[in-house]
């Protein structure tokens, strides 16, 4: 098989990228390992999606369905292969795919990689104790409850106050599982404040800040979780232990960009842990573009869609011969934890995503000769700003800083 564009992953980024490429008149094949398009949106039945992109508030499945419909308007240009996994991508632009119909090879001119992220697993937390059943990541708990109609337990504790964790605290409560608390090692919540209110405060679920799980206990099924306060270096403080009698532990401890398939083909960024990209979505391998949570973890699906469209647009221009040469590195400076994209190609203005390092009441964001004041900053809420091209001219390095004022 041959195509102009191979899109890997049919979540928010992949669907948007495929549509953008089809609009540019290219032939597109989308490979999706799940049976349906939409990715993780399908299991995120809560509202809060689409406010930027559609100017109305949707649930995840509704957001996915809108893009599924748009995809179906391009059936001449876009072929969606569901139940189809890309086994390997080679340097000669050939991919090896597997589906129930067999294994086959696909030759492409460009790849748009949109494989999303994985959840940080329990094993990586190095928590001492037993390894009984009853420990779930938030996304797995979400899938079991919202897609498969399974109740995961009777009494639960949640580790990590990321958005998915808090949303699952509400979901579990509504479905009759008692949630005894959410444990967060930082001194402030890890997710959006609106979720602290509508998911925790609304249901009187306690949030334990500056706390961590120090031990899990249980023979077959989880029985107890030991939680302790931590000092400023996240070290547990002896004597502060509290025991929670729960049969379920739900983890919301972060997402990690999924990059394994491109191992050795492209460079990664040490801060985002995702595929290093230019502002065009181009990776260090010039025919591989990437978008969405496999590049950096975004707050909103709306941003992911926009990045997918961008990658689709520039990948199309690459296919017809355009080359994006000037790639100026973008580096996080004072008070900045991470920035995305990782470099700037001056074909357009720069849409820059910034995560601050600590909560700040007021700070000036500086990017080249561009400055803007932001208020009430917290690391869990990304700053998104469009920096005009003229403000970045002549720079050979773009440092992004946040000066507290």
């Amino acid at each position, binding site marked *: 098989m041959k195509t102009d564009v191979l899109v890997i992953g049919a979540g928010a980024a992949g669907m948007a990228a495929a549509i953008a490429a089809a609009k540019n008149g290219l032939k597109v094949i989308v490979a999706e390992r799940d049976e349906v398009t939409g990715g993780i949106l*399908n299991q995120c*039945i*809560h*509202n*809060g999606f689409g*406010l930027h992109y559609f100017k109305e*508030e*949707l*649930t995840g*499945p*509704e957001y996915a*369905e809108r893009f599924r419909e748009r995809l179906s308007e391009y059936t001449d240009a876009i072929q969606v292969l569901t139940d189809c996994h890309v086994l390997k991508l080679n340097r000669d632009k050939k991919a090896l795919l597997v589906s129930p119909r067999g294994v086959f090879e696909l030759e492409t001119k460009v790849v748009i990689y949109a494989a999303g992220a994985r959840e940080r697993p329990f094993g990586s937390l190095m928590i001492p104790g037993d390894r009984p059943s009853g420990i779930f990541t938030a996304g797995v708990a979400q899938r079991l409850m*919202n*897609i*498969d*109609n399974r109740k995961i337990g009777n009494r639960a504790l949640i580790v990590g106050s990321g958005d998915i964790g808090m949303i699952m605290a509400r*979901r579990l409560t*509504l*479905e009759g599982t008692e949630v005894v608390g959410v444990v967060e090692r930082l001194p402030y919540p890890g997710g*959006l*404040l*609106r*979720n*602290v*209110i*509508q998911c925790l405060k*609304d249901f009187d679920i306690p949030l334990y800040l500056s706390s961590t799980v120090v031990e899990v206990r249980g023979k077959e099924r989880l029985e107890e979780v030991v939680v302790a306060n931590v000092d400023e270096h996240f070290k547990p403080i002896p004597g502060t232990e509290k025991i929670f009698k729960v049969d379920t532990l739900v983890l919301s401890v972060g997402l990690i960009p999924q990059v394994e398939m491109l191992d050795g083909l492209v460079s990664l960024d040490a801060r985002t842990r995702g595929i290093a990209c230019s502002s065009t979505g181009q990776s260090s391998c010039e025919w591989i573009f990437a978008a969405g949570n496999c590049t950096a973890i975004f*707050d*909103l699906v709306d941003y992911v869609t926009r990045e997918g469209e961008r990658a689709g647009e520039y990948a199309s221009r690459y296919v017809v011969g355009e080359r994006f040469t000037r790639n100026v590195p973008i580096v996080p400076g004072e008070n900045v934890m991470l920035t995305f994209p990782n470099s700037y190609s001056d074909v357009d203005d720069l849409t820059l995503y910034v995560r601050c390092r600590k909560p700040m009441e007021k700070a000036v964001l500086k990017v080249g000769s561009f400055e803007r004041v932001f208020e*009430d900053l917290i690391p869990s*809420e990304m700053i998104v700003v469009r920096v005009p091209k003229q403000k970045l001219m002549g720079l050979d390095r773009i440092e992004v800083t946040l000066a507290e004022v």
Partner: protein
Amino acid sequence: MEKLVCVLCPMGCKIKYEAVDGKIVSVEGNRCPRGIAYLEDELKEPKRIVPTSVKVLNGEMPLVSVKTSKPIPKRLIPQFMDLIKKVEVQAPVNVGDVIVRNVLNSGADVVATRSVKRIGSA
């Protein structure tokens, strides 16, 4: 000045306001007019959109996700969940289908947020 975070959208505006006897006398920080409506509700009768799911019979999936078409009073949520647990619908279901009309007399409908095909249909 009191502070409140608007939960209507992920922007999460921090609204500062002053209220005398439940009447709002000054507001700032809301980036859209919905923030004021939210604040008014929050002082009088807090309301929330409730997303959940209901059982589907003969569907390709066991559940169809649903939401209230507009926010319903927070105090009704437990009663709402008791009711929704007993609801079953026949596949096929389409996005936007009304599953329960005017639920608990709240003025909100329960609407499907995904489509579920009937088993065996093409």
